[in-house]
């Protein structure tokens, strides 16, 4: 463990303020750890390089696994477990099997997407240092925030200097 270094939460009143701060923050001194928004914004995420994911692939794989499993189960049921004659249908009546296959495929894909998303986001996470910061609660309502970390111990000028980037408030965040 390295020694604790303060991190700062910079709250912004709106998107514009946050984006201009992103332009101006000195990247040699400050590392942008994360941004917090009350709504999703692809551009900000891209700029701070957050949230890249392989959800598409996970969903596809999940869906195919689910569909494959249920199709195999149906085929096994009718061909091996108890073959019977239902109104003259063939044992491997695949057109009929497609419906549960589709349904379970969708279910598995959706669950895969949801679970993968929560896992990748590290949720659930009920206790988090950011929740200590009073101003943080605004980020789920009407403010945006950047979490920055000084690259060398402490940022020169501390909170006041950070305010100059257009933040409405700056809070220190301790691990």
């Amino acid at each position, binding site marked *: 463990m390295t020694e604790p270094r303060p991190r700062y939460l910079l709250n912004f009143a709106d998107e514009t303020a946050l984006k201009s701060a992103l332009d101006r923050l000195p990247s040699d001194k400050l590392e942008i750890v994360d941004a917090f928004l009350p709504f999703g914004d692809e551009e900000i995420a891209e700029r701070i390089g957050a949230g890249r994911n392989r959800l598409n692939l996970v969903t596809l794989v999940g869906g195919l696994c689910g569909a494959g499993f249920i199709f195999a189960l149906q085929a096994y049921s009718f061909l091996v477990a108890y073959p019977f*004659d239902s*109104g*003259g*249908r*063939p044992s491997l009546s695949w057109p*009929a099997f497609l419906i549960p296959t589709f349904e379970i495929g969708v279910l598995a894909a959706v669950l895969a997407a949801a679970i993968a998303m929560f896992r990748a986001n590290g949720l659930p996470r009920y206790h988090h240092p950011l929740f200590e910061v009073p101003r943080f609660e605004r980020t789920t309502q009407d403010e945006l925030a950047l979490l920055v970390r000084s690259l060398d111990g402490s940022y020169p000028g501390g909170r006041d200097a950070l305010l100059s980037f257009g933040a409405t408030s700056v809070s220190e965040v301790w691990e």
Partner: protein
Amino acid sequence: MSADKHTLVDRLSRARQSGAKGPSRRTALKLMGATAAFSSLAGCVPPREEIVPYVDMPEGMVPGTPLFYASVSPTTGCGVLVESHDGRPTKIEGNPDHPMSLGATDAASQADVLDLYDPLRTEAVHRDGDLTSWGDFVASFRTRVRAHREQSGQGLAILTGAVRSLTLAGQLDSLSETMPEAAIYRHEPISDAATRAGAARSFGEPALPFPHLDRAEIVLFLDANLFAEPTTGVRHARDFAARRRARGGAGDFNRAYAVESETTTTGASCDHRLALPPSGIDRFAHALAARFGIGPEAGMDSDPADRFLDQVAADLDGHRGRGAVVAGRGLPAEIHDVVNRINVALGNAGTTISYLPPVDPGLDTLPGLAQLQDDAFAGRIDSLVILDCDPIYSAPDPERMRAALEAVDVTVHHGLYLDATAKACDWQIAARHFLEDWSDVQAADGTVAICQPLTRPLKGGRSVHELVALMAGDAVTAPHDLVRRTWQNRFEQEGADGGSFQERWRKVLHDGLVPGTGFTPIAPELAPAPPASSDASMPPKTDGLEIALSPDPFLWDGRRAANAWLQELPRPVTRLVWQNAMFLSPHDGAALDVSDGDMVRVKTNGATIELPATVQPGQAVGAASLHLGFGREIAGQVQNAQGVSAFSLRPDTDTWRLTGAKISKTGDHRPLLRTQHDFDTPDARTSEIVSLADYRALGPKEREEPPESLYPERLDDEGYAWAMVIDQSACIGCGACVAACQAENNVPVVGPEEIARNRDMHWLRVDVHQTPDETPETRFQPVPCMQCEKAPCEPVCPVEASVHDHEGLNDQVYNRCIGTRFCQSNCPYKVRRFNFFDYAGDPIQEAEQTPTEPSLLQALKNPDVTVRGRGVMEKCTYCVQRISAARRDAKVDGRALADGEIKTACQAVCPTQAITFGDKNDPGSAVSQLREEPHEYALFGHLGTRPRTTYLKRVVNAAPDLASDGHDGSEESG
């Protein structure tokens, strides 16, 4: 299903169901055989079940395997074989050796076994309604009889119905000998008095004509519903159908005509039917007689009737000695006389018609109810013993009858039920059901069959023979000994050719009938014709509606009114259940402004009844028909609240027609209880017919290929492939198959409330199709499960409760069924039946039932068929239990099943052998051959369901000159 039988839910439902119905009294059935008693335990330990073996097993018994005993039904006189499971009689089949049965029975006989277990039957001996004992009765009655005997029987009177037992007849004879002053009365509410009297006019002695329909080429039924006769109907139907089999492009067909008021099974089975009111039938008989020089020249008053008459007369004339004119019991004696004379003139008498002496000569010689009432009021009767009849119910004037009983010092009633008469008597003695009793019963042709008990009396009843022996002061009182004595004496008189008595007796019991007991027909030598008064020969046309009474084909004179199977068995043609109704023609219905279910009030002879009307196409204009046998009170309940007794309308017990009755609409409406509402035939697919000429022109079968299927064939030519063919030419719509199916397959009764909600449970139904004409052609179509090869019910069942087996059966697995009812919604034939409530708990006749005390009715259940619980779908299985039993037997023996070895219940009972069942993979089987018939067709074959049950089209031998009438429907074919 027993697995669910004891769940709380089901018990609650049973309690709910039985809330308002039925008595709660029950008796544990004490069977000697293995019985299982259940009790439920919590947890996973299986419920406790007991195995109770015999202490000493009877000889010849194999536990778990049914035995058959020969016996005879006292009502019909037809020999039966009774199936007994570990001492429990469960099913009645016809006795193939008995000439009046030939292996079949009528519908009502199928239900006899239900009466045996009927909880409503009276028990032991009651005095003024309080339970006492046989000993008390004997002690009290013996002194009384002794007193009568000392006065050579003065003051002692006995009332019986028709006596069909030779032993009983002999007992009564010897009683009359020892007590010449004792009075014996006869009361048979449904009597053949006019028929006998007609024969007496013609031939000088009472006789009953017995047409041999297998010999007759031209048959005319004059108001004669011959196939519904309990004593002879089965044989007549068999003979009739023998002349109506179209096979292999040929057909030795009779041509049948009917002139009748109400559409009956007999009339509907004929090629031509003319609907006339009773007076019109008389006129028709006279007019026909005139054609053969009997009586004054006469004609009919309408063109169709004249043409009909011409054709009938021409046909009869062209087939002298090969025709038969049959008159029904409702016609007056003079018409019977006229008909007898026609048959003699045509040479039919003695060839196609035999004249048999009546089974009970007493009906003609002994006094009847009216005399009894007079004697009672005159104080000439001190003690009256009533043997199994209910005169308060069936007398023309019930109140007078009741008063007559009150005028008698001591009255004793011996019968199965605590009916109105029993209640009015001082002593009530439970009779024995014939399955509990020894007796001997004579059939209409004279053949005597021995009635032997299959169980001990379940209700502590006493044999009629024992009671009469007591009165006669006979030293022998055991019924077995009495019956045996009768035959020992008789065999001794006949000489010892047949070996020792013991051997002969054993054989008689085994075969079920005494050989050589058939009647010798009387010689049809005409007595001089009585001078015909002009008004008698030409009855005047009456104003207003004539009422034609007839017995209900199932309840008959009301003796079976307590039988829920029969109450709920759809009546032929009308498909009414649980009630009677007044049948009106559409013309008369419109005139009275009544439609189906409108209540009408009938007033005549000082009596008034109210009952619903039904407008029946095919009913004669001017005739209102009413069935007797309903509305009987038993055990304090009117047996069917919806049914009404019409006995009180009669001025005397031999009257069948009422004129001058006031019929008016009451304004009330009560929806009719029937199991079919739509009788129209919308297209030719349901019940096509073909004329005999067309049939003969048909080439060899060109199989109508069912629509292509996308699915591969799963059923192959290996092994058995069960199939059924139903010949609609033979079907007379009698309903015996439905009753047999009910008995064989534990089909529950649902009761009138459920019928009103369109919930019936019969696995097999006889659909009635009527052409939408003014004079409709009626066709019957028994509809069991079609056992489709591509069954629509199967793929929709989510749990494979409906699934196919390798022999082509469409299995319904009750224990797997969860009750989605998808199968029935997808069944084009609607042959499936759903247990909306716990019907198997028998809501009609049973109240709450505890697992530790099984009800008597449970003993009736066929142990080879699962009893279905609530929420389960059920249907015809082709009697899979019979298939399975036969297959297992064959497997144990290491052989293949033979054709005809398996008979389904409906097939076995069918009087006309309209149903054939067998293996269609066996090209030699009867069913395979019928499937190749050119007139074989599949019901809704165009749907691609590929039914295994198929039909032979009804072939009609229409008279060319009448064909244009539309009666024969030949235009509709194709």
